[in-house]
C-alpha cells in the first residue's frame, strides 16, 4: 500500500504511523460531557468501504495527513494535510 502525502507525494506505507479514524481531529473540550468523550474515544462508524483516517508521516516530512481510503480494497482516494482540514473546520 502506498499513501500520498500532500507534501512528499506517493510514499511507502511503512513511512507512516496510523492513528485511527480522522475523528481524532475533533477532540471534545474538557466539559464536552460523557457521551461526546465516549464517541471520541471508543465508538466508531467502522465502515466497510470509504473511510477517512489519520496518518503521521513519521519517516518523511512529519505531517499529519487525513487520508480518504477504501477499507475493502485498500485503495487510497485522497489525502489532505490535517492542519488544513482542521483550519477549514474552525
Amino acid at each position: 500500500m502506498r499513501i500520498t502525502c500532500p507534501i512528499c507525494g506517493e510514499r511507502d506505507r511503512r513511512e507512516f504511523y496510523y492513528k485511527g479514524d480522522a475523528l481524532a481531529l475533533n477532540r471534545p473540550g474538557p466539559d464536552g460531557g460523557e457521551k461526546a468523550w465516549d464517541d471520541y474515544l471508543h465508538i466508531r462508524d467502522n465502515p466497510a468501504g470509504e473511510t477517512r483516517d489519520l496518518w503521521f508521516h513519521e519517516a518523511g516530512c512529519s505531517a499529519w495527513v487525513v487520508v480518504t481510503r477504501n477499507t475493502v480494497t485498500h485503495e487510497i482516494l485522497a489525502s489532505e494535510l490535517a492542519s488544513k482540514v482542521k483550519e477549514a473546520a474552525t
Partner: protein
Amino acid sequence: MGFSGWRVIKEGLTGNRGWKPQWRDAAPKKDYDVLIIGGGGHGLATAYYLAKEHGITNVAVLEKGHLGSGNIGRNTTLVRSNYMMPGNSEFYSHSVKLWEGLSQELNYNVMHSPRGQIVLHHSDAQRDAAVRLGNAMINRGDDAELLTRDDVRRMVPYLDFDSARFPIYGGLLQRRAGTARHDAVAWGYARAADERGVDLVQNCEVTGIDMKNGKVTGVQTTRGVIRAPKIAVVVAGRSSQVAAMAGMRLPIESHVLQAFVTEGLKPCIDHVISFGMGHFYISQSDKGGLVFGGNLDFYASYASRGNLPMKEHVMEAAMTLMPMIGKAKVLRSWGGIMDMTPDGSPIIDRTLIDGLYLNCGWCYGGFKAVPASGYGFAHLLATDQYHETASKFQLDRFRSGRGLMDEEATGSQHNLH
C-alpha cells in the same frame, strides 16, 4: 449417528458408503424463539449450548455464506488461558476446561492438543511480570510454570538464546495450553446443534433488523422475513454493519490480522512458542506445516488480506527467534477481520434494544474463547442473567469507564491491543 473406532473400521471395510451429511441444510421457518446471526464458531457454540444447557431448540443460525467460513476457519488455532484481569481470567479458565472435554462431549474429534505454550521473556522486568501472571493463573486454579533459561533450552534448543536485542531469560509455560483443529470445532458444534433440532440456515444474509416499540421482532434476509423475539448478533468483524441495522454504533474498529503456514515438515516444534517482543508466535500443525502469525497490519480494514510490510516484519521476527526457520518455505498467508475493542476484551451483553443481544469484540483472541463464549452467551440469551464466568464483558464499560479489562495497558486505541 455417532463416531467411534468401530465405525471407522466398519466403514473402511465397506467402502465408506455409510457416511451421511453431518447436518441438515435447513430452510428457514417463519418463526423461532431465538435467531443467531452468524454461523461461525461462536454462533454455532451458542446454538449448541442453548439447546443442550437450556432446552431451547426452536433456534435458527443464519449464515450469509457457508458454516464456519469466517474467522473460525482463518485463525492460528491456539487454546490457552494466560489472562490476569478479573473478567477475562475466570472466562478463559472456564473455556480451557470446556476444551478439555469437547471431543467427547460433541462426539467429534476437535483434535484438541494440550502441547503446552511457552511465553518467552527477555529481561528481569519481564520475568517479574511472568511470575505475577503465573501466580494469578495458579491462584484461580490453572497451571503455570516458570522456566529458567536452561529449562527453555532443554525444551526448545533451536531458538537463538543470545540474540543481542532479545536474549532469552526464560519462559512461562502453561502445559494445558495448546492447539485444536479449527474447522472441526465449527463442524462439531454444528452437528451437535443440528442433532438437537437447531436449524442451520446457510446462504441467508441478514439485510435488516425489524423492531417495534423498542423491541426486536425479527429480521429481513435474502431468504425472506424471519420472526423471533430474541436476536443474537455474533458476526465478529462485521459487527458494526449488523449493529447499524438496528441503529447502533459500536466501540469496535475492524482490522486485518495475517497468518502464515509453511510447507509440511517433519515434527520439529512440539509446543506453542510465543515471542511477544517480535509479536510472533508459532506452532506446528498435525499436517506438519509451521503455523505462525504476528501483529495487526494496524490500519482499519475489511480486506481479509494484508499488506507486505507486516509480512516482512513477521518473517524478520521468525528469523530473530529461530534462525532454522529460514530453511522452510512459506506455503501461503491469509488475513482475518478482527473486531477490535478499545480495551482488547470482548463484549457479551444485552443492548438497549429489547431482545437484541451482542457477542463481539474478540479482537484476535476469539478461537480459544469459542466454548466459553457460546456457553456464556447461551446463558444470557436463555435466562437474561450473565453467567458467572462471563459477567464482565459489558457493553457499557467503555462509556462508564468501570470494569475495563485492558490486559496490556495500552489505552483506548483500538489497534494497540
